[in-house]
């Protein structure tokens, strides 16, 4: 994985500290061309990996990328699925069964919902596989070496102790897409225990890691201890604590931690992309020199 990965929150009006900023971003990135322009600015700085949720608008972005194979030959996307709000709004409207019926393609459920037949493990895993396939459609012919499960689903399954489903996701994306599975979580230490127990060595885990301890369940000390003593490929996200930490201070903290393979961040302006990227390299360089 690249040292710096570009995120997509700014494109889809996700701002953790201000609803007003969300609206401003939503206006700025109304056109797909504005998203592409920002991705190109990130590429110009040297960031060739884009981690994005399976939002409807990514379909268009993928079309543009596919249409210019030469320009984007080194470009890599890490899909994160599912786009949680799509399903959350559907569950509010249709309930859990109704949502699965709506989103699982084909007539898979035709017979299952009628009878009193017990649901088998393979049924649930088939549902998971069909949902993954549906979400992956938009990335056809695009390089997707790592495929992520979104934190709401990862953490929900974690709390429900449905560890087997997490492990099955890992094996399925490896088999079907020849990709490594990644897991986004707000509960890194607990998740690592579960993945290791399931036989996944050195898993890719993307978690909030920031100086402020924001969205780090258990706190900074617990996370730092896991990074120091355990085996994982960590991606630090929310490094700016939603914008509450100055980029320089934020990057100094994460660059100083062991075992963080990549740093994920998003920004709307070329200047912010450049300065954040440069901070990472400056602090990495300092570490090497020391």
């Amino acid at each position, binding site marked *: 994985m690249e040292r710096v990965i570009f995120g997509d929150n700014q494109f*889809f*009006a*996700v*701002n*953790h*500290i*201000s*609803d007003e900023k*969300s*609206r401003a971003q*939503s206006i700025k990135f109304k056109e797909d061309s504005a998203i592409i322009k920002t991705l190109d600015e990130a590429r110009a700085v040297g960031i060739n990996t884009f981690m994005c949720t399976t939002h409807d608008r990514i379909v268009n972005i993928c079309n543009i990328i596919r249409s210019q194979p030469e320009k984007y030959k080194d470009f890599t996307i890490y899909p994160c699925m599912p786009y*949680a*709000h799509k399903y*959350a*709004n559907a*569950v*509010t*409207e*249709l*309930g*859990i*069964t*109704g949502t*699965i019926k709506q989103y699982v393609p084909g007539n898979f459920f035709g017979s*299952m*919902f009628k009878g*009193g037949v*017990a*649901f088998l*493990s393979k049924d*649930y895993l088939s549902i998971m596989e069909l949902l993954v396939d549906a979400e992956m459609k938009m990335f056809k012919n695009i390089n997707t070496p790592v495929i992520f499960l979104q*934190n*709401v689903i990862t*953490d*929900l*399954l*974690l*709390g*429900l*102790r*449905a*560890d*087997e*489903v997490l492990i099955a996701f890992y094996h399925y994306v490896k088999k079907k897409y020849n990709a490594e599975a990644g897991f986004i979580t*707000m*509960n890194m230490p*607990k998740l690592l225990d579960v993945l290791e127990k399931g036989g996944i060595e050195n898993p890719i885990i993307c978690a909030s890691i920031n100086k*402020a*301890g*924001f*969205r*780090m*369940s*258990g*706190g900074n000390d617990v996370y730092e201890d896991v990074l120091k003593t355990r085996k994982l490929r960590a991606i630090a996200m929310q490094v700016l*604590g*939603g*914008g*509450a*930490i100055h980029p320089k201070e934020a990057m100094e903290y994460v660059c100083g931690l062991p075992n963080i393979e990549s740093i994920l961040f998003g920004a709307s302006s070329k200047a912010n992309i450049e300065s954040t990227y440069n901070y990472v390299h400056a602090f990495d360089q300092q570490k090497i020199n020391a």
Partner: protein
Amino acid sequence: MIKVALIGAGKMGISHLSILGANPNVEVVGVCDTSKMVNDFLNRYGKFSCFTDYQKMLDETKPDAVFVAVPTKFHYAIIKELLNRKLHVFAEKPFCLTSAQGKELIDLALHQGVVNQVGYHNKFIGTFKEVKRIVDSGALGKIHHFVGESYGPVVTKPQQSTWRSDPTEGGGCLLDYAAHVIDLLIGTLAPVSVVKGSVLDSIYSTSVEDAVYSLLELSNKVKGVLSVNWSDETYRKMSTTITILGTKGKIISDASELKVFLKDSNALPGYDKGWNVKNITELTEPVNFNLRGEEYTSQVDYFINAVAGKVPNTINTFQSAWYTDWAIELIRNNAK
């Protein structure tokens, strides 16, 4: 170890179950739902004991406390049964469909001496907690106006019908959506005593309202405006904002950002004269397990701690949720 059971494993029930499953002080002894698919999943993977009959579950599993996350129309009967069995109860919002039912349950809970809480999670969000603290400190001077707003994209096209589209089952924007911001206003300021005017507007739905606009007077005579619309697709998810205006200052807060204007310096420690902006990052207390936001864990932890006798049972009690039911009833009657 607190023994907990869950009735209703839908959207909120599953979320509570996951949080309970990750709590080291909780043993989930049973889950009751009508969906075979959900029950089989929870049993197969989480090793939860699943039931389709909640009375059977209560008899067999003997929980200390029960989470109730079924459609609102079933709340009254189920909660009454739980209280009669002297069990601590966490119920999803809204509390009951009528104020009379709610009143009966409040009295019963009091009589039985059990912990009671309703799932108005906004009160566990850092920014809104700080709003309450500032209001209570008196730093805003005499409060004379408020605006409570909530917008989101739940119903953005003509719907197929579900229990949420049936007002007798607890559906509609007023009960399902506006309840949150009404409860937040009441908890922050005071109960609603008079509804001066109300509009319940249908945009896409045929049997329920998609928007609620209302002019409210609180028991402390403060008047303000409620504006709620769940058919606004310019919002990615539910977005709630409260504005409170006093003679010495003003607050505008949503779940992410708190803006406070103070006329005087030294009105409140940590705040300057003029505008102050704080965000959720600095106002959030860490939790041990986080599923889509700290507030969901915080409210469950608070309930479990109240059952264990570690904290008082004072936030989101049946009584406090009843004030919200009562306000909803006043708004609905006024709009007729």
